[in-house]
């Protein structure tokens, strides 16, 4: 029997991962910190989120529960990543950031990116619990029945000696969910100043798309929020349409967008690598092309 554990600290994330995990194993358990009964899980272990402590303090308790499992699955957020690392170290194994997984009998084969997406590594997982961080779309879709299971308390108290949360500032999270958007407009360094992004916003509104960007726009000039940048260290998307404006198309960016159904590029450099990945491209200055395009749509 293949035994899978999903570790999350959000009901929705847990439910999504559990549903997908059902397609991979006959038993799916979950530890949901600060959450409730997760639909589709044979067993939900809940644990409270305690103020001033970190949820990562549950790592030993979680390692104890999942040590006999085959797969231990985490989401890609910052806290889940740290928790994954702590749990994996306790189990003396490494964390893998996977982009796909398939099962053949008891053997799992995974893929993960290497060299910023320039290469794909394929590996078969060894025996013992494998700790995986899964990005959006990495797990197979599952449409079958979702059993309802037991709910219990996770045994153990959170402990992070030497760490004390003295303040938590919540920030206004952009309501956009790039992973779910059907159309995405990406902006890059081709824009000379921040105010010019208004043109891209207008185009996004016309096309019914969300605005995203390349890394320097979020971590460089800081004209766009950091959750909006696409690429190996940012968000990965697979929309119906990705329209890149003033983005050269380095591999680190393309790995975040190359599963888009249609890629459109606007760039003044006709040798920009983005054009080799494009279905449609316009070679021209975005300051000429965008107004004309908005007009024509």
């Amino acid at each position, binding site marked *: 029997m293949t035994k899978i554990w999903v570790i999350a600290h959000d009901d929705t994330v847990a439910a999504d991962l559990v549903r997908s995990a059902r397609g991979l194993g006959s038993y799916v358990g979950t530890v949901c910190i600060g959450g409730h009964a997760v639909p589709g899980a044979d067993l939900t272990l809940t644990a409270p989120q305690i103020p001033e402590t970190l949820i990562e303090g549950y790592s030993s308790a979680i390692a104890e529960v999942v040590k006999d499992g085959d797969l231990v699955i985490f989401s890609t957020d910052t806290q889940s990543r740290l928790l994954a*690392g702590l749990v994996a170290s306790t189990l003396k194994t490494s964390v893998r950031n996977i982009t796909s997984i398939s099962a053949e009998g008891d053997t799992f084969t995974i893929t993960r990116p290497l*060299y910023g997406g320039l290469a*794909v590594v394929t*590996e078969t997982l060894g025996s013992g619990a494998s700790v995986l961080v899964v990005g959006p779309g990495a797990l197979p879709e599952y449409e079958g029945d979702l059993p309802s299971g037991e709910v219990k308390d996770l045994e153990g108290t959170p402990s*992070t000696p*030497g760490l004390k949360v003295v303040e938590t500032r919540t920030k206004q999270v952009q309501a956009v969910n790039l992973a779910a958007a059907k159309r995405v407009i990406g902006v890059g360094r081709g824009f000379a100043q921040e105010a010019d992004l208004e043109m891209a916003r207008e185009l996004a509104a016309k096309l019914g798309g969300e605005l995203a960007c390349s890394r320097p726009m979020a971590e460089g000039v800081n004209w766009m929020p950091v*959750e909006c940048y696409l690429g190996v260290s940012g968000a990965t998307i697979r929309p119906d349409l990705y329209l890149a404006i003033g983005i050269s198309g380095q591999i680190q960016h393309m790995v975040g967008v190359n599963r888009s159904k249609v*890629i459109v590029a606007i760039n003044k450099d006709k040798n920009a690598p983005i054009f080799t990945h494009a279905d449609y491209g316009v070679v021209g200055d975005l300051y000429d092309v965008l107004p*004309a395009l908005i007009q*024509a749509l």
Partner: protein
Amino acid sequence: MKIVASFKVSPETQDIQTRPDRSLNLERAQWKVGTYDLNAIEAARQLADEVGGTVVGLSAGGSALENAKLTKDALSRGLDELVTVVDENLVGSESYQTASVLAESLTEIGDVDLVLVGAGSSDEYTQQVGNHLGQILGWPTLNAIETIEAEGDHLKVERVLEDGVQVIEVQLPAVLSLTSGANTPRIAGMKDILAAGKKPVTSVAAGVLPSPTATPVSQLAPEQVDRRQIILEGVDAAAELAIHLKAL
């Protein structure tokens, strides 16, 4: 304060070529200090300059670490000295294996107050070596650290989450992994490069690595998606693109 800035050297991605059978050709690729690892070196230097102390660079890897040009480059970015762990088994090693080796070397370095790690390596980008390392050592461990401030005998750090920022007091010794936006790494000047040649480099043995936890099958460039490649130029290009977009 004795601060260790840990970094990984890997082949420059831009120099890696893909063969027609999708295998990779690394022959022309220069080995370099990871882009995000430079943030760890910079943060370590800034903190040491502020509170006093030394910055020790630490890297585990293959024979690329024996290249004097590369070690000099790392030293010129703000390290006081460098400790390398060279073993061919460390080329492509898993994050837990690497962390185990680093943990042993830290014991040899001794009296370490703080280990700083970049957001992720340039090749694997697993973002886990710092997390594994902290757990192995049993030290306070955090990832996604954007700012570090010394406050008496402890640190006050800001950690960036998806929906906010946590301000956390960290007792030492600790292991912190940074964000890629934590600072802007310095560009070494001629003086730094000349000084780097005189800084000590020590090599320590790797010991026995823990067993790997997966079996490699292949390492290939991704299959290319066939794109239509309709590239438009000239005054009517925008209008023509609009027609294609409306048809989607």
